[in-house]
């Protein structure tokens, strides 16, 4: 009786929510494994008539998708590196120093995160055009830094606040310089948090669409822009699209599952302290 109540009251609703949450994703993957004849006449069968990898083969052999994957990877790694390099010292300053303007600056980084992309993308586009940098890796890394940097600072400050100050003090008493302290004490302790933040930034950059569309798109074309371009004027090749979507979604989902635990603490912790 108790078991039944648990099932009806908790497990069944959870199953329904999971079905809603995972259904569309699973449907995309199923679609990508169908042969073309399944995708051309209605009604579509729930289970594919045969499973096939033709769309993946076509995607990797007959399109530039592999180069799009490379471009996405380069941009994301660049944006993460830039974000982390700049945010670690900044988070350290916010967490360990008291100075005039501190809370104002902290809030400023939060507010900066809230500016609409529409507000930023036009002037950045015009600036990059002046500099002749449109459609390069630099352009996209700079564009993505507009959201990776403030976000990294916000999350990293939260983590550093969680590290006990006593450790700093005892290291200083032992005669460590500030650089030694940072390298030998703070960085190793902040590393797990930093990894989670880096993973999150990677996903954010990997998934980004609007900057990638506006600031590049021809020489440097990320996967999100490339996928969108598979949509023809009259016909949509759903097999190719869903195969691409499955490949692009996979790293994002896996990394997110990895980063999830630590990230949630950072998100809500930072949110409450904000």
């Amino acid at each position: 009786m108790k078991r039944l109540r648990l099932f009806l009251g908790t497990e069944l609703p959870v199953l329904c929510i999971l079905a809603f949450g995972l259904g569309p994703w699973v449907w995309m993957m199923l679609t990508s494994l169908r042969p073309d004849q399944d995708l051309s006449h209605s009604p579509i069968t729930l289970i594919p008539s045969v499973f096939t990898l033709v769309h993946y083969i076509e995607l990797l052999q007959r399109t530039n998708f592999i180069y799009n994957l490379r471009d996405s990877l380069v941009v994301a790694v660049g944006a993460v590196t830039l974000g982390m390099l700049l945010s670690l010292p900044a988070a350290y300053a916010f967490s360990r120093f008291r100075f005039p303007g501190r809370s104002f600056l902290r809030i400023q980084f939060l507010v900066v995160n809230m500016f609409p992309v529409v507000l930023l993308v036009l002037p950045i586009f015009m600036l990059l055009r002046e500099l002749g940098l449109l459609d390069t890796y630099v352009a996209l890394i700079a564009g993505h830094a507009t959201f990776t940097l403030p976000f990294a600072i916000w999350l990293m400050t939260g983590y550093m606040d969680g590290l006990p100050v006593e450790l700093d003090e005892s290291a200083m008493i032992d005669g460590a310089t500030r650089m030694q302290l940072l390298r030998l004490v703070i960085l190793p302790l902040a590393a797990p948090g930093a990894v989670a933040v880096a993973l999150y930034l990677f996903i954010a950059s990997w998934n980004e669409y609007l900057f990638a569309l506006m600031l590049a798109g021809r020489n440097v074309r990320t996967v999100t822009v490339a996928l969108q371009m598979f949509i023809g004027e009259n016909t949509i090749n759903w097999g190719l699209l869903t195969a691409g979507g499955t490949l692009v979604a996979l790293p994002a989902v896996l990394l997110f599952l990895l980063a999830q635990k630590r990230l949630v603490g950072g998100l809500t912790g930072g949110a409450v302290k904000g």
Partner: protein
Amino acid sequence: MRRTAFTPWLFLAPALVATILLVLGPVMETLWLSLHNVVLFRPRVRPFIGLENYISVLHDEAFWSSLGRSFVWVGVAVGCQFALGLTAALLLNRRFWWRPVARALVIVPWALPSVIIGLIWTWMLDFNLGIINQLGVQFGLLDASIPWLAQPSTAMAAVILAITWQGFPFFCVTLLAGLQSIPAEQYEAAAIDGAGKVRSFWYVTLPGLMPVMATALLLRMIWVANSLDLLLVMTGGGPGTSTQTLPLYAFLTAWSGANYGYGSSLAVMLTLMLLSVVILYAVRSRK
């Protein structure tokens, strides 16, 4: 700890310089552009026109209607995400043996790129081959297939369905963390005082969740209000202007309309409205 006035600025300088260059500079530039008449084809000639763009905005019917759609978009989408996310969080806070798996898997939609989410839902809502139309007809929920994204009366609801799917895991995960931080003693105390399930939810759970809830709602509201990609991928603002929210109107004006100045003033209006929400929240949480 040694306190020198200079050291923290040394650590902050790179991040500050980058932010000024990449964010604050462009924001100022947009403000400046919004006071000028700038069109794409002659970027060098930009006559100063003062607040004229803003006056036109206030008389622009498309501005008011896209603002109205933005309110619907934010209100309904965030409301649905929140309701579903809270339900999921409460359920996942109960004990059952496969809970860790369920907690991990529920975040999947959050991790996916908006473009892919737009494509998945466009595919599922397809008139001929969409699974939603097919199952709907099969189970008698629909009389016939509906071109969800192609008719003005259903397009907005269809995109809101997609963004609800994308956003509910965020609420689930943050609210679940909030639930876990409520000390068990509070529930025990409530039980001793004779509070039932409903009352302990009302007097222990809700107040304990309040700070996380308020922050999560604020963050999500701003993200949803700003978000363009799902709308761009699924409808592009159409059919007609039935899904054209304010940021999309600003984007299309500046881009397809090639009118930078006017587009900028629309973007500034949007930012001012969002900023006022943020400031209101900051002032209230100070108290």
